[in-house]
């Protein structure tokens, strides 16, 4: 934007406004930035491998998304050869990224299972434990690791926010912006903070999933027969080595009598199961951590995509109105007219054997479907605010200054509707998570491809055991979904109260989370 004249005027409030680039302001007063950076650097250094891994995962997903779009485009215009080339290029680059990621994730980090191991065994009938952290029993070692990871991550989240405060107080161009009030109001909003806390917990699960579980998805769920464990065999009277798969076979939770490994118990092989085991003997906690990652990736891509579509279409329809608005309305109504879950089932069943269903274990296709079917709800919700802002005088003024329509939308309309977009996006993310779980629950080629963990599949696996001692298999995954969806709704409520403290609106549309699935 152009230079500010307020500080030169004689009357009215005097605003501080510094026009230089941010680095020169930092150079002038490096103290606060250095102090913040020192702690941030220490936080990153102890977890370098995990950070690189997380960044590469996001990069991989983005790369696959872009190339998939190109592939579909080439396929549509009949350039089949080019499309195959894109697919080959995609799989080779994605493979390379995955390789680097695996290497990065194997770097020693402070909070990993290598530093604080919990997979040990007893040397005799009554201990002592070997190979565990400080010789503690596995449950304690695991609990210490989980507590440290959660404490570390929550502090890291807090430190990020602290960084924004440092920027705002010391280095920002403007003394005050409307977003400051929003943040300050959110700081006093307990219900909204509950939402942020829940979302942070689930993000931690997705980021630190491999380190949080008592065992790993690869070793316990995907290829259990190529992973060996040691345990003390009472009959043989010595420590024996067997594969995780063989141990899983004898740790099944199938309800009856001794065929149950419940929450917070050990199985016959001295392995600790915080959430118990699945009917196939695999660890439910590890399964849930793996499921958190794919769930949040899919929900994130999907909600990003539909917010993008909804936001741009809302601005276009509010700016041009008339025929443009009416045609978008018809398109949106047409998509909404087919109940969403039916549309989801339809598309995922039709594409079940297509190559795109292999990307991200089927998650990418689901993210696209959720994204392209979810925008009408968001669009309806932000069209009102967009219409309001389009009638403001500053938009007229910008037009009379000769600003182009795209500039007006980006600079004058977008900042106004962002808040509303955030509110409705956080609320409809709950619907996406429930829908994703519902598809995995239905199975039959829908949802996330086995053996990659998916929350809905755990519910479906435990369905027949709910009445017996193995109730945990279905109960825990569903309860986790309830907590996450409640948290997302709370976050939406919080942001709404923060951007517009006078609004009491609980309009029908926004109450969609969770419904229908």
């Amino acid at each position, binding site marked *: 934007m152009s230079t500010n004249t307020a500080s030169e005027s004689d009357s009215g409030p005097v605003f501080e406004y510094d026009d230089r680039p941010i680095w020169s302001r930092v150079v002038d007063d490096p103290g606060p930035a250095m102090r913040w950076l020192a702690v941030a650097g220490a936080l990153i250094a102890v977890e370098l491998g995990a950070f690189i891994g997380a960044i590469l995962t996001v990069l991989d997903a983005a790369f696959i998304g872009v190339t998939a779009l190109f592939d579909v485009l080439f396929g549509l215009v009949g350039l089949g050869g080019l499309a195959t080339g894109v697919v080959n290029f995609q799989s080779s680059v994605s493979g390379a990224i995955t390789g680097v990621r695996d290497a990065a994730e194997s770097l020693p980090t402070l909070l990993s299972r290598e530093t604080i191991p919990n997979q040990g065994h007893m040397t005799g009938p009554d201990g002592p434990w070997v190979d565990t952290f400080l010789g503690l029993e596995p449950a304690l070692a695991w609990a210490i690791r989980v507590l440290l990871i959660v404490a570390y991550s929550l502090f890291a989240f807090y430190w990020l926010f602290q960084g924004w405060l440092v920027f705002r107080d010391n280095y920002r161009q403007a003394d005050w912006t409307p977003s400051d009030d929003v943040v300050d109001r959110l700081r006093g909003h307990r219900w909204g903070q509950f939402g942020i806390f829940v979302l942070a917990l689930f993000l931690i699960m997705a980021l630190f999933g491999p380190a949080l579980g008592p065992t790993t998805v690869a070793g316990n769920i995907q290829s259990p027969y190529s992973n060996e464990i040691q345990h003390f065999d009472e009959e043989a009277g010595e420590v024996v080595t067997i594969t995780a798969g063989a141990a899983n076979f004898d740790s099944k939770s199938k309800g009856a009598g001794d065929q149950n490994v419940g929450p917070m118990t050990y199985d016959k092989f001295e392995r600790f199961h915080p959430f118990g085991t699945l009917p196939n003997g695999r660890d439910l906690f590890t399964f849930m951590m793996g499921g958190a990652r794919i769930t949040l990736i899919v929900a994130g891509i999907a909600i990003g995509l539909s917010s993008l579509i909804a936001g741009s279409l809302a601005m276009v329809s509010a700016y041009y109105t008339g025929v443009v608005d009416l045609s978008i309305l018809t398109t949106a109504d*047409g998509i909404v007219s087919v109940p969403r879950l039916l549309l989801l089932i339809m598309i995922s069943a039709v594409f079940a054997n297509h190559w795109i269903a292999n990307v991200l274990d089927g998650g990418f296709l689901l993210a696209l479907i959720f994204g392209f079917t979810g925008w009408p709800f968001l669009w309806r919700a932000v069209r009102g605010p967009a219409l309001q802002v389009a009638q403001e005088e500053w938009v007229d003024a910008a037009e009379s200054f000769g600003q182009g329509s795209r500039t007006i939308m980006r600079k004058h309309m977008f900042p106004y509707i962002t808040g509303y977009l955030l509110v409705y996006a956080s609320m409809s993310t709950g619907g996406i998570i429930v829908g994703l779980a519902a598809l995995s629950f239905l199975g039959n080629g829908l949802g996330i491809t086995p053996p990659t963990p998916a929350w809905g599949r755990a519910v479906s696996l435990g369905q027949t055991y709910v009445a017996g001692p193995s109730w945990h298999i279905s109960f825990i995954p569903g309860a986790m979904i*309830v907590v996450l969806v409640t948290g997302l*709704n709370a976050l939406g409520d919080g942001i709404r109260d923060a951007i517009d403290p006078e609004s009491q609106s609980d309009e029908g549309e926004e*109450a969609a989370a969770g419904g229908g699935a």
Partner: protein
Amino acid sequence: MNKSLYILKRLGLGIPVVLFGLTMSFLIMYLGPLDPVLAILGRDATSADIRQLRIALGYIQPDGTPMPVWRQYGETMLNLFTLEFGQSWIIQRGVPASEVIANRMPATLWLGFWSVVIALVFGIPLGLYAGLRSNTWGDYLASGGGIIWRAMPNFWLAVMIAGSLSAGGALSWYRGLGIETDVIGTPDAVGNLFTMVELFDGVPVLELLFLPIPDLRNMLIAFKWILPAALVLGSASMGNEIRIGRTAVLESINSKYVETAKAKGLSPRRIVVKHVGRNAIVPLLPVIMGEFYLLIGGSVLVESVFSINGLGNLFFRAILGPDIPVVMALVFIFVIIQVLMNILQDVLYTLIDPRITLGETQE
């Protein structure tokens, strides 16, 4: 605007919406990577059979060239709009799709009826209660329950309830009451609810009076089959009703006309029913009408958990089949109902609140 003219205009605007929804479904089902021919014929089909079937289904022309997409599309749309749904390919081969659907309709209608009743009977009063006694423990309990109720996935709730009611489950004590049937299975819509008391040499006396007599035991069993599934299906909208009912009551209870009514000396009951209730219904209306939408989507999951042989289950099996005529017929019915419900909602607005005029509610 004149009411009938407005309805006609809305119906006209509904046509492109229906067309769009159906076109989308057509594109997915016919142009997506699906091959129903192999699913119908099975593994050991000869190429002659395949060719013959492709011609019969309208995928290729008799001379072997592929049927143009626009002709397939035109034919499909024409058939749907003239209610010629064709024959089922897989689920009940050769039976008209309309008959397949009609057979399963009663179970879903029965389920939908009860879930709407449950949602309305519990949801709205709880919402009004929470709003009228705001910031009391009762309010916190009702609105907190609504928030969690709303966040619960239908399919999970269904699994939990079905599990607790089955033998050995946490709620299985009801079996001591003499109703030992299971909750899993297709509920009987009306068939067994009534018995004819036969008197006078086999002439049912009530039939003479054209009145059926309810059979108590059968009724209990029938309710037990339907109520858990209906409760689950109605749960999402029930949570919404509590939440929105509460806000709506809070908004109207602090308004001037309620104070005026109080000053006039109206009884609290009359104020709540006449003034608060009526105005609280307006924001609730989209939620109530939206229930239909939730019912269709949710019925796929609830019917699959409770093994109810209804439309949701049929749709799921038809998609997996793939039994395209049945799928298209179901989508057609759902889309038409959806559009009609939207129009009905706007007309109902004007009946509840005369200040709302037709034509302005299109937003």
